[in-house]
């Protein structure tokens, strides 16, 4: 696959499933019905979690939360293509991918509920935590990938950045470096159409975001981000390529932010409701469900059982999250340095003295 001089959205967008769930080209050999079923379950699980997290925020039981509604195929498809030994450098809207990596729902809730312990993942211990300063995570991914390359380790790094993030200097600098170094990294642009209230058209005059790779010698590909099979297969190929020492790939996944930017946002202020209604016709879960039902691989009974199972799982995670006691004041100091310098003794003591209930307590 050569490097294109541009990426043409009319001809180059990779898609297997049409919005109505019909095949628009044969499924790739890497994608079995069994795999599709597992991806379907994962997307459903993420969406049910998402709804519950918003409900918790609305009832004062969770802090600000960034919903991934409608974008589940990007995270699930990309993370499914990763091996456990690979590393994820997420943005802040990537819990669908992080769940695939083993982040628990309770960890996710702890993070958005205001507790650093949510980023102390029990699994995928080398995955980076959520990254809020937009696009700064791309450099981490390139650095981590370079570490693997230098040590001759058979590992790749996948990172997510939004469409708005591609306007940021940090994105360009890191992408450029990855190109020069042939870093084993896959940069996935979650192009959900919106950077809070700023539409894609105001972020860049480029015809596609994938072609931003072209200028720096990095292969750019555009994929229907609401087709989980297309995301999976494209990221899988990019990871194989990275492992083979053939360098980075920039993948633009076209999806849509069906929800608000976060629970602190009200998208009705700047976005036409009709536009969102139209986008619901393209969303990834109904699309795959239609395909699976047509294939005879899914049914209403199975759907009901899955919904029930996910609701129970989310309910258990919520209980675990709500039962987690806040850490004591020492938690602010415990992980600031490997060993807290003596200069901090007075401040830690002060925090203990003024903490509700007397402070102390690690976490």
């Amino acid at each position, binding site marked *: 696959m050569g490097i294109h001089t541009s990426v043409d959205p009319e001809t180059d967008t990779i898609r297997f499933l049409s919005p109505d769930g019909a095949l628009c080209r044969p499924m790739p050999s890497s994608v079995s019905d069994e795999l599709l079923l597992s991806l379907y379950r994962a997307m459903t699980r993420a969406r049910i979690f998402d709804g519950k997290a918003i409900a918790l925020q609305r009832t004062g039981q969770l802090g600000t939360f960034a919903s991934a509604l409608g974008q589940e195929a990007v995270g699930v498809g990309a993370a499914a293509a990763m091996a456990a030994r690979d590393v994820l450098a997420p943005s802040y809207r990537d819990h669908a991918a992080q769940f695939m990596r083993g982040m628990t729902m309770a960890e996710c809730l702890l993070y958005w509920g205001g507790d650093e312990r949510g980023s102390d993942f029990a699994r995928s211990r080398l995955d*980076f935590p959520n990254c809020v300063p937009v696009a700064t995570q791309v450099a*981490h991914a390139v*650095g981590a990938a370079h570490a693997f390359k230098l040590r001759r380790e058979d590992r790749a790094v996948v990172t997510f950045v939004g469409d708005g993030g591609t306007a940021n200097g940090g994105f360009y600098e890191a992408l450029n470096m990855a190109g020069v170094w042939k870093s084993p990294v896959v940069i996935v642009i979650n192009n959900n159409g919106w950077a809070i209230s700023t539409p894609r058209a105001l972020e860049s005059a480029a015809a596609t975001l994938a072609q931003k790779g072209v200028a720096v010698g990095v292969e750019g590909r555009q994929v229907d981000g609401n087709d989980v099979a297309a995301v999976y297969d494209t990221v899988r190929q990019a990871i194989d390529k990275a492992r083979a020492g053939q360098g980075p790939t920039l993948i633009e996944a076209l999806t849509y932010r069906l929800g608000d930017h976060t629970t602190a946002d009200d998208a009705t202020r700047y976005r036409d409701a009709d536009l969102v209604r139209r986008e619901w016709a393209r969303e990834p879960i109904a699309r795959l469900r239609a395909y699976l039902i047509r294939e005879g691989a899914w049914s209403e009974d199975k759907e009901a059982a899955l919904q029930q199972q996910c609701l129970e799982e989310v309910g258990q995670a919520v209980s675990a999250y709500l039962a987690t006691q806040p850490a004591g004041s020492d938690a602010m100091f415990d992980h600031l340095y490997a060993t807290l310098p003596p200069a901090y003794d007075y401040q830690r003591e002060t925090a203990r003295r003024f903490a509700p209930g007397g402070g102390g307590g690690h976490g």
Partner: protein
Amino acid sequence: MAELSLVEAVNRALAYEMAVDESVLLLGEDIGVNGGVFRATNGLQARFGRERVIDTPLAEGAIAGVAVGMAAMGLKPVAEIQFTGFIYPTIDQMINHASRLRNRTRGRLTCPMVLRSPYGAGIHAPEHHSESPEALFAHMPGLRVVIPSSPARAYGLLLAAMRDPDPVVFLEPTRLYRLFKQEVADDGESLPLDACFLSREGKDATLVAWGAMMQETLAAADALEREGVDVEVIDVATIKPLDVETILRSVEKTGRCVIIHEAPRTAGFGAEIAAEIAERALFSLLAPVKRVAAYDVVVPLSRLERQYIPSVDRIVDAVRSVMEGP
């Protein structure tokens, strides 16, 4: 033992650690074939190869960012920023990631990186080459900010910085790079971080300085000795976290303190030291604490830079005034 300039001491420390720890690697602009614009990395690419001494694209923010990624995966990157005037794009990565990765992940991921940069005025360099931004970095929880004042301290402190499990901003006074040589044993012995050095003992007043200003401060101490004033001189060395106890002990002994720094006065790190003294040693003071700092102006171009950098005369004048009392 060899006579080394400060920049040669930096080079020896880097070489020593690269030889004993294969996780150490260097990255920065023009540090490979060219050996760095000040030659701090001279010969290191030839010795350790292109994979461990990396000429990066010209992008300081990404240099810091990829260093964070490398460090999180167990390497010990030492990133060079060519001049401190170009260090500002790294601040995003240093404040948002390097300094807090350990805290954010409860110790799961760490960031043992060093961000080195030539620092300060006094070499008639062009615009944007002479800044002293140590206070910016000192304000970032989770970082260490270390400034050597001699070849021996550069060698020992840089080794300590590379061995530290947390991120260190290491600011090397350009003015001292080749100003003088000193016997430095290339023995891999580090010096302690988070500790001030007592550079000269005295009983009448405490002079607190760091980096290149140690030159003017020690010269002022000599001049004051000729006037019969016996000053103690403390080289802070690690600005953050501050070893305030050593400073307080000295001030409690002498009762007088003058703080000297090349950075602008307002919100400079001297203010922090003065505040600590006011909070914890006020009743030991026989005179108000004085600061001798650069004026709150933009670093001038070379024709005026000597008037910008606090002079021996200004330091002597400040000490005389505190000796007179309030």
